[in-house]
């Protein structure tokens, strides 16, 4: 049953895209004039030519099946001349010049369980990561967290309730493949790795693990006459970098790997410069299958932002205006000493001024 190759590999890189573009797209390529958001699920782009192109956006689980994908193809064939695209946040988009197709398309989508929305000042789909489903170093299941949180935010995806766009992400280890976001829900280990000396010598390139530690907390040692490693727990900053290099540096733990919540990550350059997200809650339990504690915190943050933000103010801009003290007050989160930076460039985050709100 061995397979005999007949095909000679073509290192073709990204798939060709021209064939994937709707004729109206090709005609107006680079010559769009403006867009208008018609409702949270539909926008129209108008070309210099006067052509109109309607986009309908809908949420997906991201961890899709071929069945699901074939159903989306059916809809694309039926309503959008056989074209579809995905957004960087795993939403599906149907682009069609046929205005009359919009309503039935939306109806079909909703019937098949795809929420239509995600456009404009609202909460769009969560960027999330592999988790227990596939990754080799996760402490949680990001898909599950994303599903639970989006269940709570279902209406926030479908209605314009927010001052501006809200991006969420969730990641299953501190590496944070989900990226920073207005609100990011990220695993935070709280205990230094325990070393599995039994497997270490067979699974680990020792010098590599030693080199990986950013604070030089890992030292070679001998355990039961075998070369092994030890961790200086005083120094260790529980970053988990060693675990990526060596599976014996067991940092994951059902209880000691918790969640942290971060806010104010912004990548766009609109108005303010892009900003990095800041820690606002830690030691949040990692509680499958519904992660209620995480959900609760996200809800409080969104509520406060929704009430307090001015139009076009992103999360970080809102906080910049009202101040962090009030952010903690209004979200009823607790400011803790550990939220004061202690890492390499810590000084840059100190309040080097007499500016103070009482």
């Amino acid at each position, binding site marked *: 049953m061995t397979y005999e190759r007949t095909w000679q590999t073509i290192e073709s890189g990204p798939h060709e895209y021209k064939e*994937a573009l709707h004729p109206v797209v090709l005609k107006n390529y680079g010559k769009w004039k403006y867009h208008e958001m018609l409702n949270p699920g539909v926008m129209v782009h108008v070309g210099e030519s006067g052509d109109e192109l309607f986009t309908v956006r809908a949420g997906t689980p991201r961890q899709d099946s071929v069945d699901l994908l074939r159903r989306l193809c059916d809809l694309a064939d039926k309503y959008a001349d056989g074209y579809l*695209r995905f957004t960087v946040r795993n939403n599906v988009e149907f682009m069609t010049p046929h205005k009359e197709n919009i309503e039935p398309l939306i109806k079909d989508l909703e019937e098949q369980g795809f929420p239509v929305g995600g456009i404009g000042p609202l909460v769009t789909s969560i960027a999330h990561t592999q988790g227990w489903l*596939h990754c080799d170093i996760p402490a949680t299941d990001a898909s599950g967290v994303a599903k639970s949180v989006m269940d709570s935010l279902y209406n926030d995806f479908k209605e314009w309730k927010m001052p501006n766009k809200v991006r969420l992400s969730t990641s299953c280890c501190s590496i944070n493949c989900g990226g920073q976001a207005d609100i990011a829900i990220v695993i935070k280990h709280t205990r230094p790795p325990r070393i599995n000396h039994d497997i270490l010598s067979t699974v680990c390139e020792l010098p590599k693990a030693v080199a990986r530690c950013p604070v030089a907390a890992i030292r070679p040692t001998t355990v039961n006459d075998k070369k092994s490693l030890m961790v200086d727990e005083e120094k260790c900053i529980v970053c988990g970098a060693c675990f990526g290099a060596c599976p014996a540096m067991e940092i994951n733990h059902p209880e000691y790997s918790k969640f942290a919540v971060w806010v104010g990550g912004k990548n766009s350059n609109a108005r303010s410069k892009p900003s990095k997200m800041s820690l606002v809650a830690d030691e949040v339990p990692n509680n*499958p299958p519904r992660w209620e504690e995480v959900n609760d915190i996200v809800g409080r943050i969104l509520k406060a932002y929704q009430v307090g933000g001015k139009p076009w103010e992103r999360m970080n801009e809102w906080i910049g205006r009202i101040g962090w003290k009030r952010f903690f007050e209004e979200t009823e989160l607790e400011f803790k000493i550990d939220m004061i930076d202690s890492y390499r460039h810590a000084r840059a985050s100190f309040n080097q001024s007499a500016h103070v709100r009482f």
Partner: protein
Amino acid sequence: MDNIQESVVASREVPAESETIEADVNGQVIKKNGKFLNETPMLDELENGPWPSFVTGLKEMAERNKKPMLRGVMDQLEYSYQTKSGYWKGGLVTVKGYGAGIITRYSMIKDKVPEALEFHTFRVQPAPGFHYNTKMLRGLCDIWEKHGSGLIALHGQSGDIMLQGITAEKAQECFDELNEAGWDLGGAGAGIRTSMSCVGPARCEQACYDTLQVHKKVLDAFVGAIHRPERNYKLKFKFSGCSNDCVNAIMRSDIAVIGTWKDDIQVDKEEVKAWIEKKGMDNLVNNVITRCPTNAISLEDGEMVIDNRNCVRCMHCINVMPKALSPGKERGVSVLMGGKNTLKVGTMLGSMIIPFYKVDTDEEIENFIELAEEIVEWWDDNGLDHERIGETIERCGMKQFLEDVGLEANIDMISAPRDNPYYKTEY
């Protein structure tokens, strides 16, 4: 059903009362209590709620296509939910000539879930802008279901189509069929990575360059480096058509290519008037004028006046008034370098390295690619193991980097000149 291997039901904590079992000719269990899948009570909780559920999707497909691997994976996942622990470990599966592109996963609890023994992922490069036609996608589905599990993630956070769940044995055949259909593998390991580009000129009026074309050409140029990773660490490009940065390039890529313009914002005076009439003067003041980061917009005799010399191309006013305002006509890209996530150094945002570069003609794009190659080469020579290029630049110093790759120092690279006298000039 030749890809069903001999297997047993995973032993799990869930008590199984009075089961009915159906098996195929090889003794392979097909249905238990009328279902192909074993019980997954915790996962099933994720079938509740209005948001589309990946659990429901997987279960539905598995019940149809009856791939034991899917059952094993569901069993292992349920076990993870119960024990709050992960059970995959890595390995190295590749296809001929390639050193990367397949994320290899073996179960660490194969005794419990033998059907989940292998669960490798193909990272497949998307079409730029994530544009597809249904023919492409249906073909992909067919090949994938033939050889793999049928589970697909659209898309991975780096932009790959992730075909999740194949055995080592099937990898080459599956790849060959995919490749024949125009697909190629993406990056993994210490090499150039898969990229993504925003929807760009295909649909967006803000696109200051052809993100799709530049994505395709640049990634084609590095195709060998993607497939055979031999760098210090990973390196990612991302392409956003304007500084709204809809692909998060500044944070998520080592080399962020972001559209911008050099001349004045284009103003359609009639549309400005129409906007003010419709939305009101307060709205103009509160949401546009006062929100410009450099106070480059002022109100003069009831008209909105832009001081383009102080405009920093932030996009805000254009975003608010897309019908009335547009980026200028002399368009190109800014290149920012050094973005990456948290590991070891804390999140790094990319820094402005090239304020303006034209990428319209083939030649200009070619020049850009040459520059990128030179930059990667510099990193090859100067970087340390597991050091992203942003870290290398920080360690060696921006000056060293600029001089070595032959770029001109520019005040736009910094928010302010240095605040310490600690440097040495030629003497």
